[in-house]
């Protein structure tokens, strides 16, 4: 099995009396988009800073691409690209010069530098605006330019700290699309922090949930969703008598039933089949209009984890 791109082993980081990251252990496989989810102040940004070697852990050990985050932080930064809390753009400089600066920082050869800057500005739809001073740009345009800057040296590890924060829905959707394309094209590992769960659901093949510095859950989004009480089914119709509901509650497929105004919400045990339940309802004289399985969203799973963590 390939080495993970990121490995955290019991990492703790204190700021005085405040514990920002608490005994965090996590592995992120290489080549995927990994979502690091949590509410504001949960320790997401501190974790990125620890992984980039900008901060040292109080306890524990962290590795990125097999490199130690304390002793080999310079090598990690050389192989990584990071878009942190702010875009970090030089607003008094042109878009082209912003990319040119970072291309020089990563010592791209002259010929490659020009081609790479052009390629990234074109991909971001900013080539025609390359000579503009960045200052007057919209937040969405700045964010696209900042992502282009992150990619300038073709990093194998990319850290994105809330890349769509503060963007309007249209700009956020555009940026998400852009990120999804990048993930496929560049083939890098992307470590993305967000508190936007639909964003994580769309982009990430694995996620972890953190709260008050502690890891609450980690895995594939579908695994986390399944963890939120298993499958559910919704039945719409009439004639759901108390006798019928009691009979259904006695069935092994059913964990619980909530009935309200011609609608039943059934919590199923595992991935139980709905057919015997439908048959039972029909036999009992219920008039059924619609039966559908309800998938729990990542948001519901996340909210459940937050409540459990209280």
């Amino acid at each position, binding site marked *: 099995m390939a080495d993970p791109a990121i490995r955290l082993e019991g990492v703790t980081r204190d*700021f005085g009396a405040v514990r920002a990251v608490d005994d965090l252990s996590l592995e992120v496989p290489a080549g995927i988009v990994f979502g690091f989810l949590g509410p504001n102040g949960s320790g997401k940004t501190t974790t990125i*800073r620890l992984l*980039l*070697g*900008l*901060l*040292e852990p109080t306890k524990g050990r962290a590795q990125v691409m097999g490199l130690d985050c304390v002793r080999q932080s*310079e090598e990690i*930064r*050389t192989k*990584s690209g*990071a*878009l*942190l*809390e*702010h*875009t*970090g*753009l*030089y*607003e*008094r*400089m042109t878009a082209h*010069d912003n990319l040119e*600066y*970072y291309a*020089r*920082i*990563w*010592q791209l050869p002259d010929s490659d530098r020009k081609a790479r800057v052009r390629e990234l500005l074109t991909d971001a739809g900013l080539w025609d605006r390359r000579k503009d001073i960045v200052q007057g740009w919209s937040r969405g345009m700045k964010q696209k330019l*900042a992502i282009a*800057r992150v990619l300038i040296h073709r990093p194998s590890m990319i*850290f994105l700290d809330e890349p769509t924060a503060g963007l309007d829905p249209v700009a956020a959707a555009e940026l998400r699309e852009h990120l999804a394309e990048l993930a496929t094209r560049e083939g890098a590992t992307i470590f993305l922090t967000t508190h936007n769960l639909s964003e994580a659901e769309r982009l990430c093949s694995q996620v972890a949930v953190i709260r008050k510095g502690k890891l609450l859950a980690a895995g594939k989004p579908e695994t986390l969703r399944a963890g939120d009480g298993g499958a559910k089914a919704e039945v719409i119709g009439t004639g759901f008598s108390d006798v019928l509901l009691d009979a259904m509650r006695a069935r092994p497929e059913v964990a619980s039933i909530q009935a309200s105004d011609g609608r039943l919400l059934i919590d199923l045990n595992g991935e139980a089949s709905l057919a015997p339940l439908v048959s039972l309802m029909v036999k009992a004289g219920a008039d059924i209009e619609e039966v559908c399985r309800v998938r729990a969203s990542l948001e519901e799973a996340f909210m459940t984890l937050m409540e459990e963590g209280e």
Partner: protein
Amino acid sequence: MMRDVLTVMWKEWRDMPILRGGLKGGIVGQVIFIGILGVFLPYTTGREFVTSGMTVFIAAWGPFVMTMSLSADAFAGERERHTLESLLASRLSDRAIMFGKIGTIVCYAWGLTILMLLLGLATVNIVHGHGKLLMYPTAIAIGSPLIALLISTLLSSLGVIVSLKAATVRQAAQTLSLIFVLVILVPMLGMVLPKAWIARLWNWVGRVGLSGVIATVVGVLFILDVVVLAIAAAKFKRSRLILE
């Protein structure tokens, strides 16, 4: 390391001309400053401008004024404009960032000071030369550029130390201007120092001459530069910059 220092300098030059009130405003301000010290002062002073210690004064004063606002902007400005963290997350070493920024400020302030000294020499020769070529004495010709270089380095290194603690460019500039005020107060020491000390000082100046005074100033500035630069390098650390 040298390539990284030059990369930081490349960016600093690009970011500098529009520093205060745009390209035109910046150039006009510099032209007025250079005009006063490099043309007007030698024009009104005459031949003595070349032979007296006035050039040493320009060599010290010029970089002093030019370095302060630049060093406040170069370091505290990165934090205020939220560009520092992205820079620290890059492959650049702490030293490359620091020396790149100091190098730019020193080159700028030193270059303009040399320009002022050359302009002063040209002005005196044109207006007061009467067909004879006037040149700076050797001590001034060597000492003035050295003093300008050492003062630029000293102040930009102080700028690093001050900027580490300053949240904004304004705060850094205010702290650095306190140093400016302290330097202005130095000549006033003459009024409070015992007369015997003053007499002994003049005695020493008379004994060693202008070249001796310049050599002493260069020596003291060199030691100060080494000490302050070492402190700045020790304090300019990623983990510290992230937390400050």
